[in-house]
Each structure stands twice: as C-alpha cells, then as structure tokens.
C-alpha cells in the first residue's frame, strides 16, 4: 500500500508540471498582453498614452521577458505561494482568490456529498424495484437531469423563485457579509444559501450516478450467490446490504475522477448565473481582460482540485479493493 501511495504521489508531479505548462500557454495565447488592452482602453477614452510609462510598467510586470522566462518565474512563484499580480484589480492574486478558493472547495465538496447521498438512496430504491412506476419516473427524471444544462436550470430556478416567492436565490451569502472576516453568522449565511447551487450543479451528476448504481446493483442482484442466499432463507434486507450493495458501490469512489471535473465545470457557469463568489464571474472577467496571472491561477487551482480529488479516490479505492492494491494499477 505504501509503495502504491508513493507511486501515485510521484506520478502527480509530471502531471502538474504539464498542467501548469498548458495553462501558461493558454493564458499567453491571446495576441498582445494586458498593457495593450490598457492602452486601447485609454485611447478610446481619449487619454494620452505615455510610452515611457508603459515601458516602465512592462518592465515592472516582467512582460518584457521571453515567455519561457515568464513561465519559470510564474512557476517558482506558484511553488512559494506567490500567484502573481492582478493587473486589473491592481492587487496580488492570492489576496483576490483566497476566499473564493475556500468557497469553491465548500461548494464542490458539498455537491459531491449531495450527489452521493441522493444517488445512493434513489439508486438503491429504484434498483430493488425494477420496472416499477417509481423506477420509470426516476429514469425519466434522470434523463431530463442529464439533458438540462445546469446554468439553464439555475436560470429557471431563479425565475421561479422570483415569480413565486418574490425573492432572489442568487449569491452564496447575504450581502452584508461579503467583505467581512469569517464569523459564525457568515458561515450560517453561506450554509443558508448553499443548497441552491449544490442542487443546480449536482443534478446531472446525480442523474448519471443513479443510472450507474442502478445498473451495477441489478447486475449483482442477478448473480447466483444472491439466488442461493434467497433460497436459503436469508432476510431480504441482509441479502441486499451484506454483499450486492457493497459490490455496487465501487463506482461511487471510482467515478470521482470523472464527476469532479464535471462539477467544477458546472460550478464555473452556474456561479455566473447565480452570482456566486466562487470562480465564475471573476474568471470570466479575467479571461476577457487578459488578466493573465489571475486567470492562470484560477485555471491552475481548478486543475489541482481535480488532480487531488482523483488521487484521493484512487487511494480510497486501493484501500477498499485489494485487487487494485495488489496489482498496483489504476482504476481504469
């Protein structure tokens, strides 16, 4: 087991390096840099542009260096916790995204927990009642959930909440707590608002998970050992809980690797619609304004979240499933 953990941890290093290189290439892709955007903006406002000042700024931000040099200075900064400077907000990136990263964590992991709990309950219920009315209803809702893009679901929910209850369900906390330090009230306020984004982001993942759990559990339930157990008079509840359910639960952990990117992707757009203080709007603005270090840090963080999540799920799976642990292979 120890060897397996070390192996997986070492494998993370080249992955993260490659991810950082890709992120850097992408944020460098747009022609020109932030200063050119700035110049264009100043000219459109009719302000005079001082070339010397621009050159000074360029040197100060390190934009005059070659891209390779810029990449390495960015990378070493990242390792030391220095995420660079946001041109647009004129503040260090770490200051800007600190709270958002925390909230992204909270939203992402509550969503995963939501997906787990709901799909476990519904999936088990539905699989033990194959072809019943509830099975068909759940399947239909599942298909709808898969087909409805979550940002549209967010929009519809916002609209309905506005029509029926005359309230806004946007935001992740009450406005008065926005720029305040963390306190119990603020945390409660976040918890109060959390359920809407969690449901919105989690719907499609839940629908997929219910389908998988149902299929897996049905496979298990039709196996001979279950028939034998039933023939020998085992209590139906025990017959379900003792073996088939445990076998069918593997995807719950194995699929984190594929659900996590989905959840994070979803949260990025839903955050724009619901006006959440997570990555959404700020990433969007940073991308538009070519605020490269801010956008890069966001992308890097989101990818890191996925890599760590996949690692944890692989480790958990190895701990639970001796076949994986002993062969030293991955889950796929």
């Amino acid at each position, binding site marked *: 087991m120890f060897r397996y953990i070390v192996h997986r941890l070492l494998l993370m290093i*080249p*992955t993260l390096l*490659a*991810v950082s290189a*890709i992120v850097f290439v*992408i*944020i460098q*892709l*747009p*022609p020109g840099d932030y200063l050119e955007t700035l110049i264009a903006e100043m000219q459109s406002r009719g302000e005079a542009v001082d070339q010397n000042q621009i050159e000074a700024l360029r040197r100060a931000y390190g934009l005059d260096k070659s891209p390779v040099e810029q990449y390495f200075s960015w990378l070493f900064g990242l390792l030391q916790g220095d995420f660079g400077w946001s041109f647009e907000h004129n503040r260090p990136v770490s200051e800007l995204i600190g709270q958002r990263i925390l909230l992204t964590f909270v939203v992402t992991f509550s969503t995963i927990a939501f997906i787990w709990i709901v799909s476990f309950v519904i999936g088990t219920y539905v699989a033990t009642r194959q072809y019943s009315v509830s099975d068909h209803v759940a399947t239909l809702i599942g*298909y*709808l959930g*898969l*087909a*409805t*893009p979550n*940002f*549209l679901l967010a*929009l*519809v929910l*916002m*609209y309905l909440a*506005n*029509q029926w209850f005359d309230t*806004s369900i*946007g935001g992740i906390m009450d406005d008065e707590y926005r720029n305040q330090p963390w306190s119990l009230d603020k945390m409660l306020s976040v918890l109060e608002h959390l359920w809407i984004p969690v449901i919105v982001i989690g719907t499609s993942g839940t629908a997929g998970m219910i389908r998988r759990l149902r299929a897996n559990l049905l496979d298990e339930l039709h196996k001979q050992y279950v028939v034998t157990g039933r023939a020998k008079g085992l209590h139906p509840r025990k017959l379900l809980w003792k073996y088939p359910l445990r076998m069918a639960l593997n995807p719950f952990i194995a699929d984190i*690797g594929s659900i*996590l*990117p*989905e959840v*994070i*992707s*979803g949260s*990025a*757009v839903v955050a*724009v*619609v619901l006006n959440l203080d997570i*990555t959404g709007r700020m*990433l*969007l603005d940073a*991308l*538009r304004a070519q605020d490269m270090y801010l*956008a890069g840090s*966001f*992308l890097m963080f*989101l*990818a890191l979240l*996925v*890599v760590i999540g*996949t690692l944890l799920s692989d480790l958990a799976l190895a701990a639970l499933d001796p076949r994986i642990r002993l062969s030293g292979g991955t889950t796929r």
Partner: protein
Amino acid sequence: MSGDRPEDETGSGPNKPDAVPHFVSDEPFNADVEVVLTPEQEKYYMASQWRLMWWKLKRHKIAVAAGIFLLLLYLIAAFAEVVAPYELQHRDARNVFAPPQAIHLFHEGKLVGPFVYGYNSKRDPETLQKIYTPDPTKVHRIRFLCSGGYKGSEYEFWGLFKGDFHLFCPTDRRSPVFLLGTDRLGRDMFSRIVYGSRISLSIGLIGIVLSFMLGIVIGGMAGFYGGLVDNLVQRLIEILKSFPRLPLWMALSASLPAKWSPLLIYFGITLILALLDWPSLARAVRSKLLSLREEDFAVAANLMGASTKRIIGRHLVPGFASHLIASASLAIPEMILGETALSFLGLGLRPPVTSWGVLLNEAQNIQVVVLYPWLMAPMIPVILTILAFNFLGDGLRDAADPYK
C-alpha cells in the same frame, strides 16, 4: 413411445386426461444431415452485422423516435428560411418585447382556423414599460404554404437565391404573428430559434468529425504501435482529462482574436470543442484495438498470412466502428452544450451569427428574464435536442454489439 420412461418424472402419464403424447422419432439418427433452416432463420443467420444492428435498433422504440425527431430538426435547420416566417434580422419596431401569442381555432364560437389575436399595447405610466394584452377584436389568421408579401418575408436561401415562400405566414404586413414573442429589437423569437438551429446543430456535427479524426488517428497510433507512443498518448489523455472542461473551453475561446470574422470564430470554437473531446474517443479506439487484436478471428487472420493492413481494415475496424458511432452520438450533445454555455457567457459565437446560446445570452440578466420570460425559450430546443441525442445514443450503444 413413452413406455420406457418412468411416469412420475415426465408428469404426463396416461392416467392424466390432458396428457401430451411423448414423441420420439423412429428414424435412424444421422449426424451428417444438414439442419434445414426456415427462411426466417436463414435470413437471420445470413444477415450482415450492420443489418443485425439495424434490427436491434428498430426494437428500441424510444431511440427510433429520437432519431426521427433529430432528422426532423436537421431538416428544419436545412430549410430554416422556409420554416421561419420572418427573416433573421427583421425588426418590428412597434412590437418590442411583445409576448408570445397563443394559437386559437375558434373565435366567438365559430371555427376560423388557426389564428392569433393581435396586440393591444399601452404604456405603464410609472415604469414606462410597454404592456401588451391580446385584443379579442383583432383576428389575425395564419396562412400556410404561402408566399409572403409582408416586411421581413424575403430571404436569400442559403445566401444563394432569393425566395419568398414560407411554411406559414401572417395575413398581411399589419397583422404580425409572433408565436414565441419578440426580443429587445422586435425580432421574432420563433424565427430566430429556427435560424439558430442551423448553427447550434451543425457545430456538433462538424466538431464530432474533427474530434473523430483526432481520436482515431491518435488512439489508433497508441493501440497499434504500443510501447512508448502508447505511454505518451496515455499520459497526454490523462492530463487533458484532469482539466475541468468548461473553464478550459472558456480560456481557449477567450483567446480567439476579437478581429476575426464571425465565420472564423465559428470554426475556431468548433476546433476548441473538438480539442478537448478527442481524448475519450482516442481511449475507446485504443482499448478496442488492443482487445480485438487478441481475438481469435484476428489471430486466425494473422496465421493465414493476412497483412497488417488487411487485418486492421477488414477485421478490426468493422469490429469497433459501431461502438465509435454510438459514442459519437453521445458526444455530440456535449459539444452542443459546450457551444451553448460559451455563447451564453458571451465567450463563444458573436452576433450576427445566431445560435441558441447566442439567443440565451440575452436572458443572462435575471431582471430581464423576470419581465420577459419568453427570452428563455431557446432553452426548450436545447434540452429536447440533447435528450434526443442521449436516447439515440443509448439505443445505438445497445445495438452496437448485435451478437450479445
């Protein structure tokens, strides 16, 4: 007859009134005689793989219905100019943000045929917002298969030749028909959704073609050469998969130069969508190639001296082509969704190019949506299309392996 078998085992003894006589043929058994198949059986056993798949797919009623629905959608997209009553950019300045009109059949108890009531509009004295109510005295009949003669009825079909023929149109220029209302410039939402289908539906197809080419070439190379190439491709796929898609799509499309023409942007977006989609396809191709390579029929072909090219082309590719088609039909909706999300955020296609996502971009502001909920209408075709592709894909996936 059944004399030499114990009666209690068969359960059909002579003492039971409804006993079925046990029949054993007296003819000598000859193992060399061929089993003669009935014509139906023969048809089944001789059928090609694709024919079997088609039969299996036909049994999947929902998938067939979804396929027909999609065919219809693509037909509408192809003949958008004819289906839409108004031209894409036609503005009706007098009916800005007009609500959808319901289609009626009866007016004051009499059958008039399909018609809509005209608008009564007045301004709210406080908010200055224009409020429309249906006017029961204005009966606007809808004509079918008509040539227009009203404003916004003329179009250039595919930009090639002028036309004026529509599936349905309003009676005349003073009686507009807005089935799904109008937007902030007084443009007919229904027409715009119909025109938008052309972009939204085609982007999935073009994207999947690009993604297919990348996936088959890269995955095929990994599966065929193995070793170092395989290892590199595997790592690359893993890295690309560890990115959350949408943020990466956002970053890539934000990097498309603003100076590009709408058409270039369209192809740029398609390329970006394909760029993140090929890994799953490549992985499928690779694993299928690897497993099929070990199958008995591939080994047999190899032993009989078939060349590598022939083995791949004649034996391996047909073996997994069906799986690829199935997974493609499940990947198309993701691309359509990706484009919709990007355009909704304002990072994807830009007006005047009109897709469902571009239309939804207008519904981004919740204040606007609350006042004019019909701006959310493009959501319906998006969801229906994705649903249909999912059903069809499920059916295809089940049918892809007809020998199971």
